[in-house]
């Protein structure tokens, strides 16, 4: 062999990156699957992280949805709310003057009052259950009810008729359509049922504005919120600005902004810390399991990695092998984990507790887990990169 032959061999060995890349990818998969116990252990680590994180986030999104559903489903484009309001819940009352001022503002199609107050329903055997009574304008029906599972909205036109939460029928003493009960000391009839309308607090119960005011003892010149829909083609920002000028004593907020305000407030003060902690805990535990498992796999196969280096594989080749394994662990673990979350969500979701795993979370999970597994493989990677190929002769 002379110098040109040597150069030719060096040139040939320098090429073939694609073939080498493919070969090392297959090798990575086979090495990963060979030690079945370690493979299963690592996948379970990812599954654990996926299930815990998604389940916690699913419950969090469910709780947030419970607290924003009135805003999302009321049918209003804009809300006129008491100053410093951070949630769509019973609270400060405002004058009906605001409603009239809103109705006269250009760009508005409809403006309706909404009454919202806490009261209770008496049970036949004694005792009572708290409810959140929502009085809606029957002309516009802004504010509900929605998710109706029995009865007709028109039933609310009867002066003493209410819509109750279907999931609470037993709790309210076994109510059925046209059952008679007592709310706020007044005799009422059950005109229909909604499903799943249970915020953090007592379940929503719907009545006409007049009935609601009567049941909670609210004067007719008071309301809690004004719900506004925009006229077709109206400039939302201009209408908001006009309403703020006309009604300086209240806040005017779009549906989207009100939704965000509620979510922000809940995450900042209440739910964020507890769910953030448990979600992070799941991810951290998963990270540790994957990191330790991959590291121990490398330690167990140190001689094999040394051999691979000796036969000419580069640190880049070995890095690619570990990255391929990371991606596969993440993909398999995410797939199984998301499947389990789906089953769990279907199993535990109820009118009281919604587990919402949005599409974006399903798509984001494998990406996050891939990043997490790659990060977890860094410890193993460091060991592999520092490995001297000469160790194969020792």
């Amino acid at each position: 062999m002379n110098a040109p032959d040597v150069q030719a061999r060096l040139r040939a060995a320098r090429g073939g990156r694609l073939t080498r890349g493919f070969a090392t990818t297959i090798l990575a998969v086979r090495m990963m699957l060979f030690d079945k116990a370690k493979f299963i252990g690592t996948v379970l680590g990812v599954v654990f992280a996926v299930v815990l994180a998604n389940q916690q986030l699913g419950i969090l999104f469910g709780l947030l949805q419970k607290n924003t559903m009135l805003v999302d489903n009321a049918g209003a484009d804009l809300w006129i709310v008491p100053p410093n309001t951070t949630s769509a819940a019973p609270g400060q009352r405002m004058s009906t003057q605001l409603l009239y001022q809103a109705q006269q503002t250009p760009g508005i199609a409809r403006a309706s009052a909404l009454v919202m107050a806490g009261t209770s329903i008496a049970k036949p055997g004694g005792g009572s259950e708290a409810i959140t009574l929502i009085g809606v304008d029957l002309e516009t029906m802004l504010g509900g009810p929605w998710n109706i599972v029995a009865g007709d909205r028109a039933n609310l036109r009867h002066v003493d008729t209410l819509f109750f939460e279907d999931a609470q029928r037993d709790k309210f003493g076994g109510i059925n359509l046209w059952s008679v009960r007592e709310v706020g000391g007044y005799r009422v009839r059950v005109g229909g049922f909604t499903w799943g309308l249970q915020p953090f607090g007592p379940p929503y119960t719907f009545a006409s504005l007049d009935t609601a005011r009567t049941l909670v003892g609210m004067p007719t010149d008071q309301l809690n919120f004004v719900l506004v829909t925009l006229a077709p083609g109206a400039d939302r920002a201009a209408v908001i600005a006009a309403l703020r000028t006309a009604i300086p004593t209240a806040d005017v907020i779009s549906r989207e902004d009100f939704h965000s305000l509620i979510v922000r407030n809940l995450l900042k003060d209440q739910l964020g810390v507890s769910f953030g902690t448990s979600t992070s805990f799941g991810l951290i535990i998963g990270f540790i399991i994957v990191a330790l498992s991959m590291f121990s796999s490398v330690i167990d196969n140190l001689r094999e990695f040394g051999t691979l280096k000796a036969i000419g594989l580069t640190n880049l080749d070995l890095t690619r092998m570990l990255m391929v394994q990371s991606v596969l662990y993440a993909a398999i673990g995410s797939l199984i984990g998301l499947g389990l979350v789906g089953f769990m969500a279907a199993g535990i979701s109820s009118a009281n507790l919604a587990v919402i795993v949005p599409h974006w979370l399903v798509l984001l999970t494998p990406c996050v887990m891939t990043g997490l597994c790659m990060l977890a493989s860094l410890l193993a990677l460091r060991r592999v990169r520092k490995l001297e190929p000469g160790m194969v002769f020792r």
Partner: protein
Amino acid sequence: MSATNTAGAIDPSATLAVRARGVRKVFGSGALAYEALRGVDFDVAQGEFMMLVGPSGSGKTTLLSILGCVLTATAGEVSLFGERIDTRKERDLPLIRRALVGFVFQGHNLIASLSAVDNVRLVLEARGTPRRQSRAEAEELLARVGLADKRWNRPGELSGGQRQRVAIARAVAGAPPLVLADEPTAALDAHAGLEATELLLEVCRERGSTVVVVTHDNRIYHLADRIVHIEDGHIIDAPQETP
């Protein structure tokens, strides 16, 4: 035919596969420093089947590691087929290993998760041989070492002798011009050890590869074209100077 004889001398006109001059290797530093090679001059002619022998700790495996580019010398010059490797950066060494060197390790060092044929293919594909071609070549090599019927077995399903045959097939895959074998008989009984070394000699001769075998197994000495003794980091049978 090789350019040498077992008496130890190398033909001065022979083309060299390996040329080492003044090679030193020091492990550790300060008071803990240990000099494994103390200025080794060493030549191997192309096509030669050479054995490097010496007692434990004499530096033979260190020298083999330096020739195989898996260890760098502290000082001295080392060339493989005229290509200086001591001046190369560490990141270039995998390329030289892929291009020029095949290894037979003491403990076979096969990849446990791969079948015999895939162990051989891996080396070929690491050198860029296309997958279809690598499979045909690997199967042919395994047939050559008498393991055609065991080609889909994993190392754990093979005997020690069979594993060493796979290791030999892997070492000569792609016909590397230099094959380095570290104690190839250490894990085998006398018969299997002799058989494996004979096989290594045959397949390397067929491919024109130069072979350096590190061993202290005197039952295989008779197979060598030349035997070089190393002791305490020095070559005892110094090579003749080549122009």
